[in-house]
């Protein structure tokens, strides 16, 4: 599945949704695409029952240039300790799901786009995020098609007809 996290009224925080919409068109079959504005343990409901998941989200680490695409695997978060569901989210979910033996994706890729400021109330992306969107989508597409073997749908606009 593809799970998009974010908030579409906080500008670039909604970049995951933009990516998800495009991936939903490209992979109409075999990949469920879900968008959610929820956080924390609510995400368990979305991920449960899947074998593999790509999570797309905006991130503001402040350590890379806006527009950088960052990727992790769930295992990368294993040593982190998060004290609150408000902050924790993903790593804590992985621990918890594993611990209680849920049917949870064994292969989770977190693909995040570094954004400058995901705290601005507006419904559109900044030009920087807009420009980085193709690369962001491409990384998710690469995982889905090259690594996991899902064939993207060919559209009239593709040059590979």
């Amino acid at each position: 599945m593809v799970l998009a996290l974010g908030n579409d009224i906080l500008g670039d925080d909604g970049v995951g949704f933009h990516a998800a919409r495009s991936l939903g068109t490209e992979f109409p079959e075999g990949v469920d695409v879900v968008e959610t504005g929820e956080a924390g343990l609510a995400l368990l409901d979305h991920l449960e029952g899947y074998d593999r998941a790509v999570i797309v989200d905006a991130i503001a680490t402040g350590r890379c240039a806006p527009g950088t695409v960052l990727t992790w695997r769930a295992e990368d978060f294993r040593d982190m300790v998060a004290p609150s569901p408000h902050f924790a989210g993903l790593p804590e979910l992985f621990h918890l799901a594993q611990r209680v033996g849920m049917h949870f994706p064994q292969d989770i890729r977190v693909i995040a786009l570094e954004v400058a400021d995901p705290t601005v109330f507006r419904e559109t992306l900044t030009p920087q995020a807009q420009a980085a969107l193709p690369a962001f989508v491409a990384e998710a597409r690469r995982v889905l098609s090259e690594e996991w073997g899902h064939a993207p749908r060919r559209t009239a606009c593709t040059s590979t007809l």
Partner: protein
Amino acid sequence: MDNTVQKVWDKAQAKANEGYMRQRKVSIDPITRLEGHGKIEIFMNEQGNVDRAYLQIPELRGFEVFSLGRPAEDMPQITSRICGVCPTAHHMAAAKALDDLYQVEPSATGRKIRELVYNAFMLEDHALHVYVLGGPDFIVGPDAPKELRNIVGVIGKVGLEVGKRVISMRRRVREIINYAGGKVIHPVLGLPGGVAKGIAPSEVAKFQEIAQDGLEFARFTLQVFHDIVLKNDAYLKMITSDAFTHKTYYMGMVDKNNKVNFYDGQIRVVTPEGKEHSKFPVQDYLEHIAEHVEPWSYIKFPYLKKVGWKGFVEGEGSGVYAVAPMARLNAAEGMATPEAQKAYEEYFKALGGKPVHHTLANHWARVVEMLQAAERLVELTHDPELTGKDIRTLPTKTPKVGVGVVEAPRGTLIHHYETDERGLITKANLIVATLNNSARIAMSVDKAAKGLIQNGNVSDGLLNKVEMAFRAYDPCFGCATHTLPGEMPLLVNLRGADGSLIREIRR
């Protein structure tokens, strides 16, 4: 003025100007901001002791600008997107503001469906808090090693089965919310005068079963709290310790019998002695609540207008008040359901009578409230009106002003909209739960810092203790954080008498 004082003064002045400019910016820019990352500023005096410590928490700024010109009916969808943790609270406060805006009383069935959804949400959110957020402090224990102070540690202590139970109970209770609101990114439930979708009689048996399981889970949680927390003298001592105590006013919503109500009622405020100070319909909130502004923070500090702002001080003469579970129990004369009432009485008896001023008691008060939410769920699922066909009263009047209130898990949440005659927003003001608590949170952080930094020595436990001081309030700053998963962006700046940065503690 001597030099040092002058410098501090100039610095404060500069900050005030900066804050003012930022505010100015909001009014001219068609965007608004959500700010704050759990930043704590500690100002030291020349002796190396704490002069004043501040916590910066995020505030919705100029949300008004974003809402202007939009149809009021969109507000339940828009505001539910403000927070990924409690969309249901915003959605419901907005729906109630719409009732008021169109001067329409929801049909009995519409109201009961809303109440059903809302109590389901309270139960689920409180359960999460007890096990996941409060858990590290209480169930695992405040002195447990850092690597155990998380949900995995909690499960280690209460057992795997309980962990599974928490997860499955949560999911099942959410089925009720999803059925009524739709499992979509923006819930569609509340409309002026009622709800968008009724409950099919065929669903009732399932909902009754879920409600009953929820009640058993709440009972079980009270038992866990007894076994692990209350049988431990060290915990009780910590709850009642001076470091986590402030004698302030308390605010909460009550029904006509002055019992706790999460969905509807009047707002009641009690004094630090527990006497009724005021009781008012939410429409009058501007007569009772005013907001104080400090130069060092862009966040506003609401206070009781009739008492007045006297600074970050406790006592009857200071308008500082608190909301959230502990405050709700203080502000009411009891719980609305029998088992919760029993738990309520026990709570006050164990903590030395009413009102309770110990911030950490919020964790216990939350368990008492879980019981009420669950008992109310059981009642509602057995109410024949729940499946009625008349789910909405159609509004016919011209809209003008609407104010709605609910008790969110984290405290009183007020939505206030004004519109033109077509129902397009001309003004929107939200008082979110954490904002009501902002002055008291600032006092708690200040007290914790003062206890931990003496004569220039900064205790290593600073972060944890300061965190505990504000974590009990469960301040909502989740929406503003987009840092690397797993890192809580807590930042402590220690500043000297001249305002210069001495040390930065970051995690």
